[in-house]
């Protein structure tokens, strides 16, 4: 036991006396989680909470325009701007101010569109009642024009288009119903206006995150970034661990250890246990960041769920996988440069495809498939399961099994490679 303790202590001392290595292990991921969470949160808040301004040139000045204004106010998503410098916006204003990027979008409501809707509705009703021919080719068409800044992302443009189309359809339907109601009243004196709403149809529409019993948990930048950068930090031990193994090979320490009975394996176990401890310290540091430090900057508090034991087991398994990867790279590498560059680049790639920087669901299918092979993705899914789905071991075991098998295969491969190289 004392031999193991000495081997473990040696690794810890070597790490403590390596400021660059400590920086990579603790400072870099800490800074990254702060920066990325803040950036993502402000970007998401900007989309989620800030009302987007929309220039409106209302040439109609009738029901459609008025109802659109009420719709904008009710949604809270868009803030219409009708005048600039006390002058009503013209069509050319809308095009000019969106094309130069001053505003992200604008809308031009053509003159007479409300009246046109009413007229067309009357024609439809007349054709139904047989008092007029069927409407069709001679129906007058008007176009409500949406204009976008060319720099607006297509996904954002599409979401605004859908929202606006829904809004305008509802208004058009209302106008049509009003027209029908008016004509019906001509035939049936005393008939009231037809109302179409959820109260009549009995259908409501609602959205929420499916988060199990804990209704407090909502996916946000903190819930994503804290586990994501914890995993990234853990796997980044590949650099100090890999280079320390190469150093031992380079300067003959490995030869010396192999001559001492049982000490090579002991030294490897000392390394594994020391680096697992480092990973767990990284985990504790990142958790404290999410629980204490990020909320101080106005960000949401990290919710870790109630399954603390499962969370610890997930972190421990992730630490084992990361350590095994570092050991494997260190054993295979012939130089410091190989260990550091291949180790870091491979972790960056696994992180990128594994959903550490950008959530997997926004990735194209090919990358998503690649990502499902990344151990960082397995680890992230396990953390998501515990944080967001209140999962216990019965639910996360598939991810833990994959990580454990990954670690065992790499440890065996490292051992085989170390024995093979002297032949």
């Amino acid at each position: 036991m004392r031999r193991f303790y000495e081997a473990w202590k040696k690794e810890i001392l070597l790490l403590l006396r390596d400021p660059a290595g400590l920086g990579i292990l603790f400072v870099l991921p800490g800074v990254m989680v702060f920066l990325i969470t803040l950036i993502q949160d402000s970007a998401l808040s900007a989309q989620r909470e800030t009302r987007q301004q929309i220039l409106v040139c209302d040439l109609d000045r009738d029901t459609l325009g008025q109802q659109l204004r009420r719709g904008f106010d009710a949604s809270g998503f868009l803030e219409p701007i009708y005048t600039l410098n006390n002058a009503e916006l013209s069509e050319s204003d809308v095009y000019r101010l969106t094309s130069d990027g001053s505003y992200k979008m604008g809308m031009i409501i053509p003159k007479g569109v409300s009246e046109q809707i009413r007229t067309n509705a009357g024609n439809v009703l007349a054709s139904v009642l047989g008092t007029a021919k069927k409407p069709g080719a001679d129906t007058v068409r008007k176009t409500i024009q949406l204009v976008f800044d060319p720099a607006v992302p297509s996904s954002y443009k599409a979401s605004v288009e859908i929202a606006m189309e829904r809004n305008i359809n509802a208004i058009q339907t209302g106008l049509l119903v009003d027209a029908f109601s008016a004509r019906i009243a001509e035939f049936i004196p005393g008939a009231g206006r037809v109302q179409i709403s959820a109260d009549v149809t009995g259908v409501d529409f609602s959205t929420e995150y499916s988060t199990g019993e804990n209704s407090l948990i909502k996916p946000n930048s903190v819930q994503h970034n804290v586990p994501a950068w914890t995993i990234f930090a853990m796997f980044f031990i590949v650099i100090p661990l890999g280079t320390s193994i190469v150093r031992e090979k380079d300067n003959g320490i490995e030869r010396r250890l192999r001559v001492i009975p049982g000490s090579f394996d002991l030294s490897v176990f000392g390394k594994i246990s020391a680096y697992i401890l480092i990973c767990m310290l990284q985990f504790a540091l990142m958790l404290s960041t999410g629980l204490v430090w990020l909320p101080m900057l106005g960000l949401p508090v990290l919710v870790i769920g109630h399954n603390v034991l499962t969370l610890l087991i997930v972190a421990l398994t992730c630490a084992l996988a990361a350590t095994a990867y570092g050991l494997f790279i260190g054993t295979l590498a012939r130089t410091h440069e190989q260990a550091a560059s291949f180790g870091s680049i491979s972790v960056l790639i696994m992180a990128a495809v594994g959903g550490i920087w950008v959530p997997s669901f926004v990735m194209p299918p090919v990358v998503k498939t690649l990502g499902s092979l990344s151990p960082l993705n397995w680890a992230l899914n396990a953390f998501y399961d515990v944080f967001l789905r209140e999962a216990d071991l019965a639910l996360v075991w598939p991810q833990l099994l994959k990580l454990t098998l990954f670690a065992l295969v790499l440890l065996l491969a490292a051992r085989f490679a170390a024995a093979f190289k002297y032949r």
Partner: protein
Amino acid sequence: MIPEPLIQVRDLSKAYRGKIEPVLNGLNLDVQPGEFYGILGPNGAGKTSLMNILCGLVPYKQGTVRVTGFSPADFNALSKSRIGLVPQDIALYDKLSARENLHFFGSAYRIPHKELRERTEHYLRIFGLEKHASRPLKTYSGGMKRRVNLIAGILHGPDLLFLDEPTVGIDVQSRNVIVEFLAEYNRAGRTVFYTSHHMREAETLCSRVGIIDSGVIIADGAPAELMRQHACETLESMFLKLTGKDLRDE
């Protein structure tokens, strides 16, 4: 009665993967207990490969090797603990102090804690390092590192000590301390197996030397005897006579 050799090598050949020429080519060698045996040879002659095989670090397919009565493939904890290795490289952690390095390697040999501390301080004193023992190794001179490198190989008191060029590239004073210590260590009845390019040092220290070239021992005997046989005044001139003056850059 002649004691059983501590090192016995018969028809040993070794070729590394991907190399056509064998590095060892039917080598035979006996080293008796208590000998100070020097293996001398030009670069690429097979010295380090032979030492690696004797220490059990590199496997071989052809020939037989017995060290302390065991084949290296069958080394157990006891046989390994009878062996000490001082590699040519400074096989130490440069961010640890001399004392921390020695405690780590000593504890790996299962030396009891108290005894390890006593031995560490004893050797640090002998090698003039006690004042610097708490400093990180990276602040040491080359000679100081060589001395710590040697101590790490002898802390457990091995019967058979393998030394791979233990005095290469160091100052005269450090070399003198090391050479005097090794002579004393051998006088205490321990066997030393040593490689060097320093002929005068080998002439002084070794009770027997073997000249190795192209993977075979081409001359073996006491230095004085070999010099007489080959009519040479120094071991260095005899070495050049046997191995030639052509450069052996690897």
